[in-house]
Every structure is written in structure tokens, then in C-alpha cells.
């Protein structure tokens, strides 16, 4: 499985990657991007199965990146992880096609449940 982790903060990317359950992490190929523009480019070049996307980033923010990724691949699985926990932000990312959203920071136990959820989303898309 290929996972793309997008966040302008190196610490945040590291925390997110470490929160992925080890049994899943060791079977994954993990890519990283520092802003939305880089995320869109890496999505197109590497076709990840799951994208974890921050919203507040320089150059191109997460909203724009999400919009461009979904336009490029309507079946893309993009899960937003952000400090922005406004209901309107959540509504907006879901309208744009995100598979879900959680607030930062993600603890390992929370990430386990996110993965169960995303596996279910992937299964439904394959059906």
C-alpha cells in the first residue's frame, strides 16, 4: 500500500507516520510532501492509495490540493488531519470529496481506528 503524508511541518509528518500501526507501516511505502502543490504532483506521479492531508500550508493549502486531487482522480482517498476543527471546515472538506477528517495531533490508538475506517472505504470502492 502507498501512503502520501502531506504537512508543512516535519515534526507533524513524523508524528503522523509514527502513529500508523507498525504492522501496517512496515507493509507500506510512505511518501511525504511539504505543501499542497507538491502533494498534487506526488499524487499524479506515485498514485498513493491513501493521502493524509493537512489544511494550513504555504504555497498551496490543503483545500486547493484536495480539490485538485479529486478533480484528477474522483476515487482518491484523502483523509484530512488538521488543527482546524471548525464544523464549517469539516463540511467544506467533505464537500470537496475528503473521505474524513480528524483534529491534530493523532495518537496511535486514534490512527488505528482511522485505518479500520479507511480499509472499509477502500473495500466499498472496490465493490
Amino acid at each position, binding site marked *: 500500500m502507498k501512503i502520501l503524508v502531506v504537512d*508543512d511541518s516535519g515534526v507533524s509528518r513524523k*508524528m503522523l507516520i509514527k502513529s500508523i500501526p507498525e504492522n501496517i507501516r512496515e507493509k507500506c511505502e510512505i511518501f511525504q510532501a511539504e505543501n499542497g502543490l507538491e502533494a498534487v504532483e506526488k499524487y499524479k506521479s506515485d498514485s498513493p492509495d491513501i493521502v493524509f492531508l493537512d489544511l494550513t500550508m504555504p504555497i498551496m493549502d490543503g483545500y486547493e490540493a484536495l480539490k485538485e486531487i479529486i478533480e484528477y482522480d474522483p476515487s482518491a482517498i484523502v483523509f484530512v488531519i*488538521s*488543527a482546524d476543527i471548525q464544523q464549517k471546515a469539516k463540511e467544506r472538506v467533505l464537500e470537496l470529496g475528503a473521505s474524513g477528517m480528524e483534529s491534530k*495531533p493523532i495518537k496511535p490508538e486514534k490512527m488505528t481506528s482511522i485505518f479500520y475506517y479507511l480499509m472499509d472505504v477502500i473495500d466499498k470502492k472496490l465493490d
Partner: protein
Amino acid sequence: MDFTKDDQEILGELINIAFGSAVVQIADLFDRFAKLHVPSIELISPQKLGVYFEGKIDQEGYTYLTTQRFNGNFCGETLFFVNENSARNILNLVYEASELDSIDVDSSEIKESLLEIANILGASCVGKLSELLESAVTFAAPKINEKTSILSILKTLAESSYDSVIFVKTILEFEDEQISGDLFILSRSDSIEWLRDALNSFMESYS
């Protein structure tokens, strides 16, 4: 200040999260949508504050400074510094346009509105930071100081026992209003030592 580059990066990310949480509280309170910006975070010595504030007052019309003490494992004082324009934008955020027509807008309204916002911003930001580090803080009532008394406040702070300052340069962007402000978190060496250990423990939970 005894912070490694890694410590600073972790602190920056946690303040980013804490600041986001504070802005969201303000947005929810006034039923506005806020566009979150990445705050710029810097660790500076308290001695640099005087020079910084003098420049802001003289060149950028900064007129209001709020102060608020907090206590806990992490203890110290927050300062929130804004210019006249941002202070007026805060007023527009707190009051509906129809209310602004009917109230006599003078500096007391601006000060009350600014105190409200500074209280939420500082307390939520420091409170959330402490919560992320599995601790808690309590807050004293915030105070507001105008241009004429800012430099004497700073002199008092410079003579106090604060050893370090976390400088958070902020933009609060709502649908109709933009508020630029500087948030400073002052603390003493024992608090900084606690903070550094807590940051390391936080990261260990991911290893």
C-alpha cells in the same frame, strides 16, 4: 535558551495546533468562519522585547497590550499586542453591524472587545498547549494597557524574573475582518525546563 532544534520544531507544531484551537473557539463564539494561517514562532530573550515594542509603537501604530498571568507546571504571562486598526476590526468581530450603529463606539468598547479576544486567544492557546502536554494551567484575569503605559509595563517585565519568550506572530482572518497581532508567552527557567521535558515525553509517546 536551552532548546535543541528538535525541541523548537515540536514546540512550533504544538503551538500551531494550540493556536488553531484558540482561533476556532473565537470563530465559533462569533459564528464566523476563520481561515487558519500558520503562525510564525520564535524563541527570543526578554531583553529584546523593549526594542521590538518601541519599533512597533513608533512605526506601526501599535496601541494596545493585554497581559494575563497563568499558573501550573508551565507558568508565566501572555502578552497580546495589536495596532489600532486591528483593535477596531476586533470591535467589528464582537459586535454585529446593526449593534455598532446603536452603540457609542469609543475606546472603552474597543478595550472590552480586545480583552475578550485576548483572553480567549491567550488562555486557549496556553491551555491547549498544556493539555497536549498532559498538564493544566489556571489563569488570572487579563489586563489591558494603552500606548502610554506599555513601555513602563515592559520595563517592569524586563526587571522581573522571566527568562524566555515564545513569540507567536499571528493573523486571525475571518470572513470580513483581519486581525494582525503578536502573542508573547513569557516564562521562567524552571517552567522552560518543565516544557522541554514535557515536549520530549510527548514525542516519546510516538516512538
